[in-house]
Every structure is written in C-alpha cells, then in structure tokens.
C-alpha cells in the first residue's frame, strides 16, 4: 500500500461534437479544476497532459500545449500516451511526482477532438503496426471486437440482447442527469432494439460514440491539502497501470490472434481482471468495500464483463447483477453514475480522468441529482489499446 494524494479539484468541458480544437476544451477543464481546487495556476508546480494522437505535434506534447495556453509559468511538464489509459497514466505520473516530493500541486489534463465515425489507425502503410494490420487485413473496427465479446458472453453465460439493452437504459438515465454528458435523454430497451446493427449482436445504441471533451484534476500532497484548508479531501489511494501477463488468452484490440497457451500456462484470470486486482491490492481494499464504480462501457456488453473483472460478482453473473438492480442507483454498487461512455462518448485522453472526476464528486457528496447515498470508496476501470491497464481507487 502506498501513500495517498489529495484530489483538490476536478473539472470538465462538456462532451459533445463542438467542432473546436482540443486545446480549448482542455484549458476550460483545467481552469474549472483550478477554480474548484481554489488554487492559482501560478501555484501549480507540475502539469501532466494526456496525449491525443490526432492533434499533430500539439497533441503529442499535450502537457506543454496546455501549459502554454494557460500561460507559461515555469512548471515541470510531462506528456503521456497510453491510448484509452492515457488519463490514468497522467494521474499516476502526477501522483508519483507528488509522492516523490518533486511537486506539491500537479494539474492533470486530458482533452480530445474526436474524428467522425470509427476510430482508425494513423495514416501510411505500416504493416509492422498491429493496429494498422487489423484494419487492412480484416477490416476489424473497434465495434467488431465488442461484437465478438458480446456474442461470446451470450454463448458462454447466456446473456441476452435485453440484458445489454438494459445497461444502456441504466446509463442513459444517469447521463440525463449530468450536465457534462453529451447525450442527456433517457433511452428505452425498445429504442435500443430498434437501432441499426453495427457489429452483430450489438446495435448502434449498444456502442459508445466518439466525442469532443475534456477533464482535469488538481492533485496535491496531503500536507499541501491540510495547509490549504482541505482537512478531509477525496484521496487517491491506488492507480493500477499493469500490463498483461503472457500468454494472453482473450482476443483483444488491436490483435489478430491471442498468444498460444500450449506451452506456458496462462495466469489465473484475464488481463482485465488483473487491472482491478492490482488496484485493490495497492489500495488495501476489496470489492466488498466499493461504494460505486465507473467502468469503461465501450459497449453495453463490456460493462457486464467489468462487473466480473472488478469482482463485484462471480464469472458469468454480470447480467444477474444488473437484473437484480445491484449496479443501478440505489443498488449496492451503482456503476457508471456519470452516465458512462454511453452518455459521454469517447474522448480518449480525457475519459480515464473524467471517471475520477465523477468519483470525486460522488465521494464529496456534490453529484447533485446523480448523488449516491453515503459513497466512501470509488473505483474506476478502463483499458488502453496495446496492453495498458487503468484503474484508480479513491476514498473519502
């Protein structure tokens, strides 16, 4: 178990399709987080940007880009890329700097302006890149992988299309209460069923969209928080950034095949499960301690998978947990109280940070109409392309 850092501030730019540059979104989120923290930008000792690969050089050097936009003031800077886990790695970079005594206050920012339609690999002929290969050789989009997982769950665990639809119904209802969400309408199971199939068995409303958006956090040492008058701040107790263990046995983005398990026996549990386990171990808590979870619902079916990977239930019991209302507001462990990616869409470098923003507001008791009663421990779960784990445990 490691020492804790304080979450002094959280901020977002509302998600949507705004047609502007990612810097604008990121600066708005950063300013919101600084105001929330009651910290001036000049008092920030370090800034960490989660990279977007779609902005050319400014995107690749996100930390410095946000620092320049906010006004150069000499802070330390770092920029990190870990695909969908970029935000968690940015948080972890900030945390390690604080715990190492390199900075008292660190601003973490992730922002993106997503392209229309399917995500696609970077341009050029690059047959040494598995992400390029899966598109060129198979036309395998991200939803294709989500479809494979969904069909596999139906075959192995007996999940139904209605179960998947109910995840969307739940998350859309939460998103309708969230001013930062892109989609703010409730959705019915009938509407999910009536939407077009994208990748069998998943439909348009089973799959998250791509969005513009931003999220930011101000993290500090516990000592700074006390001096700053924050006696009982939300604290980050663990950040899991684990990689998989060879051999991986679940076909995963962007790979065309799994590793062979013929010679080396696979570890117990999947990569996704190991992400959560590492966070629990570092935090010194267990799944029974969790008040709420923000999980990476790229598809409705994938949310059910995360219930199992977070050990909120046993393997194959995800749909039952949903049906029993355990993961709904008022249930034992509400999941995606923010509305999740179902309501936000993907803004890749921002989403793992946005998950921590939601947990922060819930743990403070300031989540408004979405507020969960008595939330004490929140966990986030996410996974980045190319084997990046991402899970954060925050406590109050």
């Amino acid at each position, binding site marked *: 178990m490691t020492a804790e850092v304080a979450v002094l501030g959280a901020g977002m730019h509302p998600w949507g399709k705004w047609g502007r540059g990612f810097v604008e979104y990121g600066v708005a989120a950063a300013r919101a987080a600084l105001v929330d923290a009651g910290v001036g930008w000049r008092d920030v000792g370090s800034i960490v940007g989660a990279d977007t690969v779609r902005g050319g050089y400014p995107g690749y050097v996100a930390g410095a880009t946000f620092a320049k936009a906010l006004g150069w003031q000499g802070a330390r800077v770092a920029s990190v890329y870990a695909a969908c886990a970029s935000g968690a790695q940015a948080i972890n970079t900030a945390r390690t700097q604080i715990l190492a005594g390199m900075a008292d206050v660190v601003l973490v920012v992730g922002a993106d302006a997503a392209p229309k*339609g*399917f995500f*696609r*690999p970077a341009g050029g*002929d690059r*047959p040494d890149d598995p992400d*390029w*290969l*899966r*598109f*060129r*050789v*198979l*036309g*395998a*989009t991200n939803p*294709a992988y989500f*479809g*494979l*997982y*969904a*069909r*596999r769950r139906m*075959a*192995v665990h007996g999940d139904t299309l209605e179960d998947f639809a109910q995840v969307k119904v739940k998350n859309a209802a939460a998103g309708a209460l969230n001013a930062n969400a892109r989609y703010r309408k409730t959705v019915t199971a009938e509407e999910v069923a009536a939407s*077009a*199939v*994208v*990748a*069998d*068995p*998943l439909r348009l409303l089973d799959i998250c969209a791509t969005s513009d958006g931003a999220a930011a956090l101000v993290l500090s040492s516990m000592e700074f928080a006390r001096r700053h008058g924050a006696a009982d701040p939300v604290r980050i107790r663990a950040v899991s950034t684990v990689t998989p263990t*060879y*051999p991986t*046995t679940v*076909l995963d983005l962007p790979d*065309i*095949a*799994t*590793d*062979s*398990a*013929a*010679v*080396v026996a696979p570890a117990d549990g999947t990569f996704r499960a190991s992400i959560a386990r590492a966070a629990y171990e570092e935090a010194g808590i267990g799944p029974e301690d969790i008040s709420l979870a923000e999980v990476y619902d790229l598809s409705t079916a994938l949310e059910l998978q995360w219930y199992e990977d977070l050990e909120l239930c046993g393997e194959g019991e995800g749909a039952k947990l949903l049906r029993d209302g355990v993961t709904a507001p008022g249930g034992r462990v509400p999941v995606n109280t923010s509305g999740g990616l179902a309501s936000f869409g993907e803004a890749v470098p921002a989403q793992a940070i946005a998950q921590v923003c939601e947990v922060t507001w819930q743990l403070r008791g300031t989540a408004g109409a979405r507020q969960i009663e008595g939330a004490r421990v929140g966990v986030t779960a996410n996974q980045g392309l190319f084997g990046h784990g991402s899970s954060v445990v925050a406590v109050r």
Partner: protein
Amino acid sequence: MVANWFAGEGDDFRLLGTRCTACACVFFPREDGFCRNPGCAGGELAEVPLSRRGRVWSYTDGRYRPPAPYVSDPELPWEPYTLIAVELEAERMVVLGQSVPGVSVADLEVGMEVEVVQGVLDEDSGTTWTTWHWRPVAVGA
C-alpha cells in the same frame, strides 16, 4: 503486404506462424524478431504451419464500411463481411479472420468446426491480394 503469413493451395493451404526453438512457444502473426515468452532467454524462430481446423470462439460482422486502410470501393454498396475468431486446439490460441463470402452470422454458432481456406482480400487491375478465410466444415465441400 503481410509476407509469409500463409502458404499452399487447396487442402495444403495453411496459416504460417513461428515457433521458438528454445521454448516451443508458437506465434501468429509470425514473430521473427524475438521470442515473447518472458521466461525464455530467446531462441531461433522457425516457421511452422498452424492447425488447419479449429472451433468458433466467437463471431460478428461489419454492417458499416470500415475506414482505410481497409480497401473497399466507395462506389459500390457496402456488403457486410463476417468475422470469426477461431480457437485452435493444438496451439491453444484464437485466430481472427473473415469468413468465406456468403457465410453470415446466422450460419454460425460458438463451438462450430471451421477450417482455413485461401481467399481474396481485394484486387485491383494489377494485383490480387490473397488472404485466409474461415469456412464452416459442414458448409464447405
């Protein structure tokens, strides 16, 4: 485009992987640079054909045209393709591939036996790009 991922004609068509001579781990797509087993100090990587048949791990389709670098003619209406993830028993690995044309998700079930056959990925006036396809054993000749 992807050199030496498969070879042979007809019943001799096989996916090609590589096997580490030190630890016997098999890799597909072929790994020619280094053995990725963390417990292996590294051996030579020798080409090895993969099992011809396997069982469906899962399947899906693409109802919308994927972006480049997938090649498709934007002038033509989009024809959905089917993707099958196939579990090879001997290798204990799952390999994704398109199905042979004409097989839809309605023709498939998890656990069904399929075999690898040669197929065409796309062609232009000068070149035909070949690939591998999975074909249900019960359907194929």
